[in-house]
């Protein structure tokens, strides 16, 4: 056998409020079907959601924490991307 251990899966759940699927944890399972069943048992015992995604952890590509500055720093100085950067007189009312 090429795999001696149960592979790792990441679990994403869409809450009942209809928001996007959100990462909620991980688990080990032999295949996708068993991963889905285990995710249901482990992560939705109290109606936490109505849709589950399971993704092999090995399929996830993550940004490197070492690159954090060059990736995210530029956004910090761009305050003109936020509504509060612009002055609208009070008389105009809520906008």
């Amino acid at each position, binding site marked *: *056998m090429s795999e001696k251990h149960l592979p790792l899966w990441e679990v994403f759940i869409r809450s009942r409020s209809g928001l996007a699927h959100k990462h909620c*944890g*991980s688990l*080990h399972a032999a*295949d996708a079907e068993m991963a889905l069943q285990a995710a249901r048992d482990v992560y939705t*015992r109290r109606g936490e959601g109505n849709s589950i995604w399971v993704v092999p952890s090995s399929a996830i590509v*993550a940004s490197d*924490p070492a690159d954090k500055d060059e990736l995210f720093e530029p956004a910090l100085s761009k305050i003109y991307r936020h509504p509060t950067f612009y002055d609208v007189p009070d008389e105009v009312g809520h906008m």
Partner: protein
Amino acid sequence: MYTQALNGIPDEATDQSSEAARFQARVDAEQKIEPNDWMPDAYRRTLVRQISQHAHSEIVGMLPEGNWITRAPSLKRKVALLAKVQDEAGHGLYLYAAAETLDVSREELIGQLLAGKAKYSSIFNYPTLTWADIGAIGWLVDGAAIMNQIPLCRCSYGPYARAMIRICKEESFHQRQGYEIMLTLARGTPEQKAMAQDALNRWWWPCLMMFGPPDSESQHSDQSTRWKIKRFSNDDLRQKFIDATVPQAHYLGLTIPDKELAYDDASGHWKIGPIDWAEFKRVLAGGGPCNRERMRARRKAHEDGAWVREAALAYAQKRRARREAMQIAAE
């Protein structure tokens, strides 16, 4: 269920490099440390030990309660107990997953437990002799666990903190169902009330030991505090638990088995008599009433489940091979 303050932290914990300084600055600023971030080796090792001990405790903790599932006095109690024990399995899984983000495998961690090299909370080495023990465990053991776990929701290590948030949300039901069992017994026949009292007598002191050795003896909490893994000392948490629990026992009309227990007006705390730390050490070292039984049960479960894991993997392999063969044929 819960992690006990058993962790020795190695001496090289004080690393002087600039990376270490940056790390400590982030911790001081209450930023979360995530799996791929740089961290001192000792921080990693401390977390692996603490989180895996915590996971083992959740898993072994299912055994004393599992003992009563088939003998629960009503269907209502039975479904509640089943749900609670299932939650504890889930807690174990969340925690193993958190530990695995620190570069240890699940197999390695479980191997340590089964080989008797890993610790788990001493409380689960006591037997559940009567139904009242199920009430006492929910009320006291889960109650003590909650005291200890709430500060861990703010632990500096992200995956551990997130697992603890999930766990804490689920623990409240555990404690309340236990207290309700105690309340029902305490309001029942004299025999039932005596059963509740007997359970409290046996579980009270072991529950106080769950918070770990007294501050005067635990040399290692300083570093854990600096790393913001630990937020309160063992004695502080123990005192919080005592202050919360004594009035609950009085409401039940039960007596805390401590002749020296007295309310101290000056400090506003309940003062207890001396804890038998020799017993704590004995149980931790394997000499508790059920240590051997618990390990035997875990090993048997692991061995009995081996064919299921192997079959599931073999089946997944076979289907993958078949899919690949079909793809090649189609090309």
